[in-house]
């Protein structure tokens, strides 16, 4: 019954999306149109129904209703509850439902909360949100119904891919989707503003917290996904330049550019058309990412729920929405009036430079991701990996990071480079010193990119705090703190990445229990290998002790797991985290002579990569709070000023008019 309720709710939500589109469109011609007043309630109800539908899906997974096809193919009655629930989105249909739910929820939130824009622009925005939603409802209902029943229930489900039975995967897709799909709001705002020609600072101020919110979730999602791949795949890597990873990185790059250009628009009324363009591009990248991931058109280590037949459906949606928005942009960009001017050396100048760099990086990642598809048309199969992405990306990332160190110190509109000479000197000195120290101190050959990464990270970490110089720290606005933290997070993350690729030690040994090995200053000893059993798996678990110098003896327990449903083996890595890095151990297969393969890594400061990601998100969250608080305050003062002016006006009038007249 719950499955049918969920299915019905989905149909009703789709109908409401159509109503939302019609109402919003009619309101553009006639603000008094009877449907116009229904736009906001429709968006809110649609959000509620989508959430209800998703709750029903969670319910059928929670009770393992094996008459529902999706549950039968993806769940198993013996799975722990948390993985039953996360299994709801660990498959194609469920993840698309989550996609649509987040989209509807985002629409409902703006319909409910956003009162700052002119009503006409809001209606156009919600119409656009509804229009995009319709396509994805159609996709869900017509080609991937998550609530489909089986003719006869099966006795037991097929289970969920064991790699996905992990706590990281319970959180990673929802956060990532909130970011991905949250960007639909930016898209709709951009379309709404274009339709009503309301591209102004007020629009940017309204859009910014929503973009920031999506961006925070996207950052968290990417961070979580990277950490999951790191410990769960057991390959010791944290980023593979895999198409699915790139699919999440591309919207992030676009959203990062967008929130910076929205800042310029909000503060200085410049970069109008550019901001609109980025709003369209950011969500287009989300949709492209969905297409790449869902269609299975590219080989990926992360793609677990793919279906090529459905690819063409998403491709058609992609063409309609991206093509339509770009067409609208081409038609309207000319009529978006000119913004304010600024000098090359100014805050705007630095932000424009970084925007261009971000877009170039985006272009590089996009080309690299799609290149295998292009060559396939000529029957040549290639794959593109780190040898392409790392150096080519770095050519644009390094100038961007350098400008990022200085940009926040510059004044708006026009500045003199002389004024910021001292901070620049400090940062350059730090970068050069670090580079020299690393070259002199390291015994092994550190690559050029890791070396530059380490040096810039150190310079940037100091530079990111310089905007606080000369400020009263207690009275510094939260949004400034947010920026400082996010920029510092980039430096922290960069340091982790550079350190990991420069100093990682790797060792592959085959030893019998009782034998020892050595890595990264740790004495490693394989104590024993024993069979153990979990709720839905059995495993060979190695007991490894690690001891650094005269320190305490630590135990690591990497496993080689064997799952029953579905039948699959996975390697479970074991991690030993120290303040200065992580020891990473994987156990492999036994050789006939009783030796076990161990793969060991010592990764100095690798954890900083993810701590950096968390700092970036925290910075974004602070910026949202700060912006909202200052916006509310500004509105209050403005309202008070208006009141006072009105009062003054009325007093003046009453002065002119003979006493006794009422005002």
């Amino acid at each position, binding site marked *: 019954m719950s499955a049918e309720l969920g299915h019905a709710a989905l149909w009703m939500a789709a109908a409401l999306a159509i109503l939302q589109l019609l109402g919003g469109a009619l309101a553009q011609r006639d603000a008094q149109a009877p449907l116009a007043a229904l736009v906001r309630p429709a968006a809110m109800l649609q959000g509620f129904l989508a959430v209800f539908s998703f709750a029903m899906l969670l319910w059928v997974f929670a009770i393992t209703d094996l008459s529902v096809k999706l549950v039968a193919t993806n769940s198993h009655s013996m799975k722990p509850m948390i993985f039953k629930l996360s299994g709801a989105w660990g498959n194609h249909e469920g993840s698309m439902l989550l996609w649509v739910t987040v989209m509807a929820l985002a629409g409902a939130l703006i319909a409910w909360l956003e009162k700052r824009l002119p009503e006409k622009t809001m209606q156009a925005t919600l119409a656009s949100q509804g229009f995009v939603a319709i396509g994805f409802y159609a996709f869900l209902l017509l080609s991937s119904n998550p609530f489909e029943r089986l003719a006869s229930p099966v006795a037991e489900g097929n289970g969920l891919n064991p*790699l996905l039975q992990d706590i990281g995967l319970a959180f990673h897709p929802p956060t990532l989707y909130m970011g991905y799909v949250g960007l639909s709001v930016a898209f709709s705002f951009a379309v709404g503003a274009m339709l009503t020609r309301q591209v102004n600072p007020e629009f940017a101020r309204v859009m910014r917290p929503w973009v920031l919110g999506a961006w925070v979730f996207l950052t968290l999602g990417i961070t979580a996904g990277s950490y999951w791949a790191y410990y769960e795949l057991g390959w010791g890597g944290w980023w593979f330049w895999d198409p699915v990873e790139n699919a999440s990185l591309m919207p992030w790059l676009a959203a990062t550019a967008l929130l910076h250009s929205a800042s310029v628009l909000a503060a200085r009324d410049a970069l109008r058309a550019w901001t609109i363009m980025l709003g369209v591009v950011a969500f287009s990248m989300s949709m492209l990412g969905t297409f790449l991931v869902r269609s299975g058109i590219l080989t990926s280590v992360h793609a677990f729920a793919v279906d090529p037949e459905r690819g063409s459906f998403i491709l058609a949606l992609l063409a309609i929405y991206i093509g339509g928005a770009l067409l609208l942009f081409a038609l309207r960009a000319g009529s978006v009036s000119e913004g304010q001017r*600024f000098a090359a050396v100014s805050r705007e100048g630095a932000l424009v430079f970084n925007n261009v*760099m971000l877009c170039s990086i985006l*272009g*590089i990642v996009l080309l690299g991701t799609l290149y295998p598809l292009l060559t396939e048309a000529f029957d040549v199969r290639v794959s*593109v990996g780190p040898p392409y992405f790392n150096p080519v990306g770095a050519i644009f990332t390094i100038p961007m990071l350098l400008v990022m160190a200085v940009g926040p110190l510059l004044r708006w509109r026009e500045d003199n480079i002389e004024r910021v000479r001292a901070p620049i000197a400090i940062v350059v000195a730090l970068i050069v010193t670090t580079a020299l120290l690393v070259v002199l101190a390291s015994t092994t050959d550190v690559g050029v990119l890791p070396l530059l990464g380490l040096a810039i990270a150190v310079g940037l970490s100091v530079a990111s705090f310089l905007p606080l110089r000369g400020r009263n720290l207690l009275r510094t606005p939260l949004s400034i703190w947010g920026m400082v933290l996010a920029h510092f997070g980039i430096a922290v993350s960069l340091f982790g990445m550079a350190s990991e690729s420069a100093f990682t030690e790797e060792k*592959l040994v085959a030893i019998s229990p009782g034998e020892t090995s050595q890595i990264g200053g740790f004495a490693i000893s394989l104590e024993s290998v024993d069979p153990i059993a979990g709720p839905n798996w059995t495993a060979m678990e190695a007991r490894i002790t690690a001891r650094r110098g005269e320190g305490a003896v630590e135990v690591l327990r990497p496993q080689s797991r064997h799952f029953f449903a579905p039948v699959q083996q996975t390697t479970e890595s074991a991690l030993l985290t120290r303040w200065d890095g992580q020891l990473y151990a994987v156990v492999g297969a036994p050789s006939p002579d009783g030796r076990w393969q161990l793969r060991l890594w010592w990764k100095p400061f690798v954890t900083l990569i993810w701590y950096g990601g968390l700092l970036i998100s925290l910075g974004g969250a602070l910026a949202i709070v700060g912006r909202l608080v200052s916006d509310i305050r500004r509105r209050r003062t403005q309202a008070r000023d208006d009141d006072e002016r009105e009062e003054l006006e009325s007093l003046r009038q009453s002065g002119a008019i003979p006493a006794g007249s009422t005002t």
Partner: protein
Amino acid sequence: MSSIKPKHQRLVLVSLALVAIIAAGLLAAWALRTQADYFYLPNEMMDEPPEVGRAVRLGGMVAEGSIERLPDGVTVAFVVTDQADARVPVRYAGILPDLFVENSGVVAEGSLGADGVFVADNLLAKHDENYVPRELKEMAEHQGASGPQQTVVGYE
């Protein structure tokens, strides 16, 4: 720059952005042609071997009875075949992926050594019975040999 009219400023900005993005595109196109890893089937690798040391990928089936563990305990030697005559010997030092078995598909990333042995840095096997690297799926040979069957296993 402040003397420039807004219209000109926009023109300057747009052209700068275009130059940067076109430069990025050209750079990407050039780098892609030199850095992309080409995919080889065993017979292609026999007929037209890639340069020694160039990063490529080799995809095929693990030949029956060919998996052999070398005495150092960590290196594995096996033969990748297209189930016809082409047989490429492969050496790999590392932990074997889950589901790396004989008569099953594999994609080896690495390069051809001077001695004609393909040295793999990484092996990609099937993730599970539902997910197969696409290049493997496309190989007609693969149809004959699927891994663990879709099973519904009871739990005691």
